[in-house]
């Protein structure tokens, strides 16, 4: 299963919380990423996330959405990191950043 953030959600990632404005990490998690992850999990598939094509990658947005996905699922014993694959031709270092947020959320 594939989630292209720019196509399926928005090219304009925002801040952390919904209260801070549109296209926040919290909103992305609830309205898009969480649903894609659930579908992939139920179908026992991996979820490939395309990061290219966005205006930027604010850390609050990335932490709240990807870190948040880990926080929601770790109590259910699901290993989110194993099921997600990231693709970024524009900025490969971004993948490491996101995975760090996810690992911190797992250990936090």
């Amino acid at each position: 299963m594939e989630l292209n953030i720019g196509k399926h959600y928005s090219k304009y990632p925002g801040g952390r919380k919904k209260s801070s404005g549109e296209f926040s990490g919290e909103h992305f998690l609830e309205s898009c990423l969480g649903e894609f992850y659930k579908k992939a999990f139920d179908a026992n598939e991996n979820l490939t996330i395309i990061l290219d094509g966005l205006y930027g990658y604010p850390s609050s947005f990335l932490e709240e959405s990807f870190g948040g996905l880990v926080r929601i699922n770790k109590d259910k014993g699901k290993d989110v990191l194993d099921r997600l694959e990231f693709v970024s031709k524009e900025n490969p270092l971004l993948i490491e950043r996101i995975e760090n947020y996810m690992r911190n959320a797992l250990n936090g």
Partner: protein
Amino acid sequence: MPKNQHLDRYKKNQLNRENALKKNISRLKEYAINSDILRKIHIKVPERLNFVSSNYETTQFFSNILANVKTMNRSSEKMIVDLLEVSEFNSEVIVYFISIIDLLSINNVNFAGNLPRLPELSTELGRYGIQNHAKVRKRLDLDLDRLCVFPGSKVDVKVAGGISDFVQKAYNLNPNKCKILYSTLIELMDNTNSHAYNKVETDLLFPENWYICVRNFDDHVAISFLDIGEGIPRTIKRRGLEHLSSKHSDLIESTLKGDFSRTKTGLAYRGYGLTETYKNYSVEKQFDELEIISGKGYCRFDDFERTKVIKDELDEYVNGTIFKWKLYKKEIENGT
């Protein structure tokens, strides 16, 4: 006539009298504002407006405005801001001044002012769009190709995207730098929205806005981002002896470098925004000449040794936080 009818007529007359009185008061207020009846409070703007080189005079000027807003009688007094003798100012002070004008408006302060005697400074003020915030009699033109001021609240992805597009088109900027610029603006907007005005004193209404100024020079783009909230030193978590004494510039440096989680939310995963911004300057070298003013702290970073901070403690407290940085055309052309 039945008793109830008398009562109804009495109530109707009473209501008419009250409405007429309200109308008269409002006409009188309007007349007073437009004429010279209101007692005037004159506030003189210092000759040089600069938070660093003329820190005392500049902060005293803004403190004086705020102190007068608190004590003045807003229905019988009018504030006159006298800019006539101003001979020098920089971007962030003018944008800060615009934010203070917005504060005056939302606090229903009657205010007026004049323009600097020097025509080039008057024209320059116009370029900042001061006429969009206060009534200006003289015709002042915006110069949107060279200078834009964006006020806003919350995280505004369209403003951040628009600035990023503008800079890319103007300088054919490397796309990665544009993404960093976009992300930096979003982080600063988010910080303003989440922390800057949380503890701000309540006897005045604050616009709770951020302001971004983008200036387009021949060899670089200069960006300033500011708010007039509590400032970094008052909004971060302090530890140990920092409660007793700590230089504001040290607190700013420590917050940027992410020495430990300073977010007051108490959540370990919060507080990435400023450290990421600093990393984009110091490690990724995605922008230049970073400067931060907040409270009494002033931090300027050395572009040759990017983790080295030139710190200074200002004499007077600057309410809010000012971030400034530059994107040089030369570097942009080299694609670095």
